[in-house]
């Protein structure tokens, strides 16, 4: 039973501009750690952002847990978004705020405007935040400012924030591109563990094919907005990789 199904997704940013995504269709199942790979400009980032409608597609269909994502209005859209955790390439933390506040911001979808203004969160939320920070190994850094942390630590705050949402789907937008190779591997391993533990499917946009092959069970290969490959990692081989990356000179 697929959790997320995408049908014929098309995206064009402006009427006269090029079509970034040209009719993508695929399914994500409950236990998937789905990788999206492809050369730069293939539309990977755009595709990820369509799922939680940070980008509005021009046409197509996205159904998540039976909900038609593209038809949602603002309040329902916010409710959808709070169920989707997103982890970003450049961490997207609020640098001046503490780690704790950044993690707590994961609950903003559940908190009213006045409480958000005074940064009042329930004791349950705070307790949960501490637990989550434990899980990602940042208990010693709870009150530090986000910009005092290293890249790997910041990404772990991002993971913690996503976990706070108790997500039903995790979207990762090149989570390791800003990290060095060793830390990248650690972060991917942590995400995979957590995804398995909490039974959350993951859709991951990734640049590094080696990491994709190592951690992900299914791969979607994109090139120039078109799907070139959709299937289990075991079926991926060098020849198919070459096809996908054919346009890339380097």
């Amino acid at each position, binding site marked *: 039973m697929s959790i997320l199904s995408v049908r014929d997704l098309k995206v064009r940013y402006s009427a006269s501009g090029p079509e970034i995504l040209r009719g993508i269709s695929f399914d994500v199942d409950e236990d998937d750690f789905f990788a999206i790979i492809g050369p730069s400009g293939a539309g990977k980032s755009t595709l990820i952002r369509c799922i939680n409608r940070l980008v509005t597609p021009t046409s197509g269909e996205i159904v998540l847990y039976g909900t038609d994502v593209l038809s949602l209005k603002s309040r329902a859209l916010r*409710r959808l978004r709070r169920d989707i955790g997103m982890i*970003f390439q450049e961490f997207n933390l609020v640098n001046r705020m503490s780690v704790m506040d950044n993690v707590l*911001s994961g609950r*903003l979808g*559940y*908190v009213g*405007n006045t409480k*958000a*203004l005074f940064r009042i969160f329930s004791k349950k939320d705070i307790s949960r935040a501490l637990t989550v920070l434990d899980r990602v190994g940042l208990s010693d850094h709870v009150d530090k400012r986000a910009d005092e942390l290293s890249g790997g630590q910041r990404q772990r705050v991002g993971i913690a924030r996503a976990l706070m949402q108790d997500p039903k789907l995790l*979207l990762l937008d090149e989570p390791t591109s800003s990290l060095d190779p060793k830390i990248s591997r650690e972060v991917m391993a942590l995400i995979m563990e957590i995804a398995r533990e909490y039974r959350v499917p993951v859709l991951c946009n990734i640049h590094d094919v080696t990491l994709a092959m190592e951690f992900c069970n299914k791969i979607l290969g994109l090139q120039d907005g078109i799907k070139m490959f959709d299937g289990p990692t075991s079926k991926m081989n060098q020849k198919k990789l070459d096809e996908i990356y054919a346009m890339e000179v380097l």
Partner: protein
Amino acid sequence: MAVTETMDREVGRIIDQRSKSRRVRFLIFLGVMALVVWSVKATIIDDTDWERLITSGNFLESITQFLGIDWALVPNLVSPAIETIMVATLGTLLGVVLCVPAIWFGALNITPFPPITYPIARLMMTLSRSIHEIVWALFFVAAVGLGALAGVLAIAMRSIGFIAKISAEAIEDLDPKPVEAIRAVGGSEFQVFIYAILPQVLPVVIGVTIFEWEINIRRSSILGLVGAGGLGLVFFRQLNTFNYEGVTTVILAILVLILFGEIVSYFVRKAVI
């Protein structure tokens, strides 16, 4: 052989160029010097009453008159000093409040109607910074009468320019990444503002406000010269009664106030950064 010839030609060309540019620079230098000489003549030499200056010879005496502190005056300085700080503080705050439209219009990413509102904002900022605080003070004394209110208004108008400029730039330099993250988490637009935008902009606004407050102490200390309250009035009176030691004392008091302002400013800015 041909190689050395071309090289010689190149070297010759470079030397020519350098001496030509050197000649041009020398001519510019001469021009500037001529302007300076003429300026000095026109301003200092022609305008000064040399006879009076040299014959009266109490040149040095005038200077020594200032050396010394009028201790009796000091207790009477406390109240005007506090008044000066108050005028500076209230003026800065009023300035920040009045800044809001200028900041809104003056940031390219949030200005409502760029071709019109942006130039208006930039004009407001430029006018505020170009008109000297004395001129503002004169205007407000005519509008609301002598006293601290005129000073507060003058300081406020003078501060708008810089605070609005820096704050608008901070808004233009906004990092969109946290904004995206809070949206992705399911936050409302209000929450996006509180969590992603405000933490980026507020420290800058507070920082520049404190910076301007410190400068405003310096400004408000002399607004009394045109009747707008504070130490400037005391200064004026000491001058008019020819109490030159008193004048020095007031100046020292102003320096103390400015030092106080710098200390406070340093600590607050460190806390807010």
